[in-house]
């Protein structure tokens, strides 16, 4: 198929940036979106133009590195997938496709479609862990039975890949879904309960300091999340936060 790509080009963090048009031919439905981008880049390189910079790595939807805003949706029109798993069969011959970076104050653009998501890491550094040393001298893994239901819920929250689609989709650029997924995982498990209060207060504080917006319950994040992380997690985090703030 033939496509008309409109891609955000920005040479550096200080550059103003603009949308540029690139026609492309010979795209087939079995190609992934990023393979289509590879094809474009190889053509650009061989014709002496500068290729489009974009983040990607595992290309199987789990590393969370790819991050394109396609036709106004994080990771494009398909549901439950990242951009690397989006296939061109979701588009039609002759389509115009708009490709932009994540846009959020806390995710500054580095170049073209590449943004800086280190704010997510800094939130994790402030409390996204259980304070246990890796000595191996812990109790036997089966000494604390955990109800299957709790373990399953914790697992579902823990499947967050930290891609930032929730922030990109939110009109307030809020990171509540991301932060609440980690808070939920650890507060559902006995191992994480010991420091639950401190964790939620510290992580929320860092989230605010990094310049993420507030949550106004529009639910866009849940719809666009490639891993189906549920809004319930935000509700759980709000309860944990309230508990922590009142009893501190």
């Amino acid at each position, binding site marked *: 198929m033939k496509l008309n790509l409109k891609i955000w080009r920005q040479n550096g963090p200080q550059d103003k940036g603009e949308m540029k048009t690139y026609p492309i031919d010979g795209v087939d439905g079995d190609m992934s979106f990023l393979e289509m981008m590879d094809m474009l880049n190889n053509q650009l390189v061989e014709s002496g133009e500068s290729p489009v910079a974009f983040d990607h790595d595992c290309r199987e939807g789990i590393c*969370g590195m790819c991050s394109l805003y396609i036709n106004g949706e994080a990771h494009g029109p398909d549901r439950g997938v990242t951009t690397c798993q989006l296939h061109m069969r979701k588009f039609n011959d002759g389509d115009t496709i708009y490709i932009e970076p994540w846009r959020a104050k806390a995710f500054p653009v580095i170049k073209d479609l590449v943004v800086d998501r280190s704010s997510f890491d800094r939130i994790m550094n402030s*409390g996204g862990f259980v304070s246990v040393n890796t000595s*191996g001298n812990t109790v036997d*893994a089966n000494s604390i039975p955990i109800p299957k239901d709790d373990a399953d819920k914790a697992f579902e929250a823990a499947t967050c890949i930290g891609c930032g689609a929730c922030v990109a989709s939110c009109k307030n650029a809020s990171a509540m879904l991301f932060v609440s997924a980690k808070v939920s995982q650890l507060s559902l498990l006995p191992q994480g309960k010991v420091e639950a209060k401190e964790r939620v207060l510290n992580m929320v504080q860092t989230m605010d300091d990094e310049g993420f917006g507030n949550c106004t319950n529009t639910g866009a994040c849940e719809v666009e999340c490639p891993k189906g992380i549920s809004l319930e997690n935000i509700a759980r985090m709000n309860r944990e936060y309230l508990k922590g703030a009142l009893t501190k």
Partner: protein
Amino acid sequence: MSVLDSKIPEGPIDRKWSDYKNKIRLVNPANKRNIDVIVVGTGLAGGSAAASLAELGYNVKAFCFQDSPRRAHSIAAQGGINAAKNYQGDGDSVFRLFYDTVKGGDYRSREANVHRLAEVSASIIDQCVAQGVPFARDYGGLLDNRSFGGVLVSRTFYAKGQTGQQLLLGAYSAMSRQIGKGKIRMYTRHEMQELVVVDGKARGIIARNSVNGELERHSAHAVVIASGGYGNVFFLSTNAMGSNVSANWKIHKKGAQFANPCFTQIHPTCIPVSGENQSKLTLMSESLRNDGRIWVPKNIEDVEAIKQGTKKPTDLTEDERDYYLERRYPSFGNLVPRDVASRAAKERCDAGYGVNATGEAVYLDFAAAIERYGKEQAHVQHVESPTAEDIYKLGKGVVEGKYGNLFQMYYKITDDNPYETPMKIYPAVHYTMGGVWVDYNLMSTIPGCYVAGEANFSDHGANRLGASALMQGLADGYFVLPYTIGDYLADDIRTGAIPTDTTEFDEAENAVRSHLERLIDVQGTKSVDYFHKRLGKVMWNNVGMARNEKDLNSAILEIQNIRNEFYSNVRIPGKIDELNPELEKAGRVADFLELGELMAIDALSRNESCGGHFREESQTPEGEAQRKDDEYGYVASWEYSGNPSEPKLHKEDLVFENIKLVQRSYK
């Protein structure tokens, strides 16, 4: 020929590690604060090593090329992690895990290392649970297990099809805690370009900051390389796009020997190649072979009918199907080790029974499992005289619970619904058992330069068993390296910080700069991918699942040609001092173009079949891998001579005191 000293401790196998640990030198906590350690790579091995070293008190600098340490490719591991917990009471033990791993590796690994791995395996599970890793549990709240290829017990712990993700996020959280405390300084979007050796010891690295292209000098008292495997030398593999051999290759060129480079694991269950523009292959976890049955049609007419679309696989009756693994290997059936399953698929497809347009696919079928689970559930839920539809629905629910994310992934990629029609799968490059040679302490032949995880060669021999990569990565990082490195660093308590304004750092930085300039100055006509794809084709056709003398010799010449062309006709746009993904790729491909040749040379020199290395000249009458223990019972360790085409071979003889070598059989 110099003798490789593996430094295996004396004593009986089950006492070696504990006795050695009791005697190893320790560094006191106050002195640890004056010692710096660099860790390159933040996957399971690197991430767990960085966290543990920081907890012990060392100053750690960790590097990864991704934008966050959480993205390392360990995250994509699906099926599970082995541990000798014997929670199922099915006869498992440390010895049995040790035995299975040595046998699975076709007797080309070091007994002492593998036994240590089996010993620490149980602690890994305890550790991860304490960190909040949400492993699968049964209704009693205890941990669940499943079975993997090449073993007869259930010792694999898992978190749906995302075990690697959960374990890596555990290691990442341990790292995050230390980053928050300032004990780890994390350098993301940084790629190691060179090792700096001072007075014969590894004392630092040159790294390129990919955001602004600056070359940075980082010094330390020891350097740990945990940069993963080199499967991307085949261009198409299940590795992440950025996975590369460069850190390993740079230390190889500085004196670290590279062991068994030709030992490559071709995983039997991957989604088949669909077209020329494909950039990577996707694995379907080995855990699927617990419930999926592998088959091709018995009659060649049915193959043709399926290819032409006049028949569907579901139209074929049971006796029109050839469940070839169950037929050839009745005792292990669909759960034979990966090398055996891959070769069996190739054998059927080479004979013309492949079921897709390219003739390179076999079926992985869940219909029988859905029916079996459906009947079980109907019984449990007291559904009286269930219809076929009831059974399908109930069974589908169970299969979805176990493998839901894998089925969804398959559906998204192929547009076929695997609940209704069998999956199509074919072998693909997945893991590399070879790697930098290390001694028992995980130290390479460069003093102070350690190598952990997939990047080293030590534990899996010629074939890795499923769910053992995660085990080895975390064992190395959490429980082995943090101890053994102390023995070396005990000599450095008075050294003080290593300065970076020295000739050694000047020279290393200049070498990196001139290499990058050389690449960018070619200004030819072809993209980096063009050369990478050509290299990949040569590797897959000549150094892939089956190898012979003639093809290997021609591969060596072809790789040399591609390398020469690369340096005269590659086109890299942009500059060195800016974000330049094409330049990053070019640096990695330049190293693959040298490694590929070494792999072919190694495969040529090993004229036996073992594990994943199958020389057509050396097979049993049934077509199984034929080892030659008398001639090749060694580790082939290669020294860089200054010319990639003339590596120098060293041998470490493998001594088996606890396991009797036999022809591996899974019949």
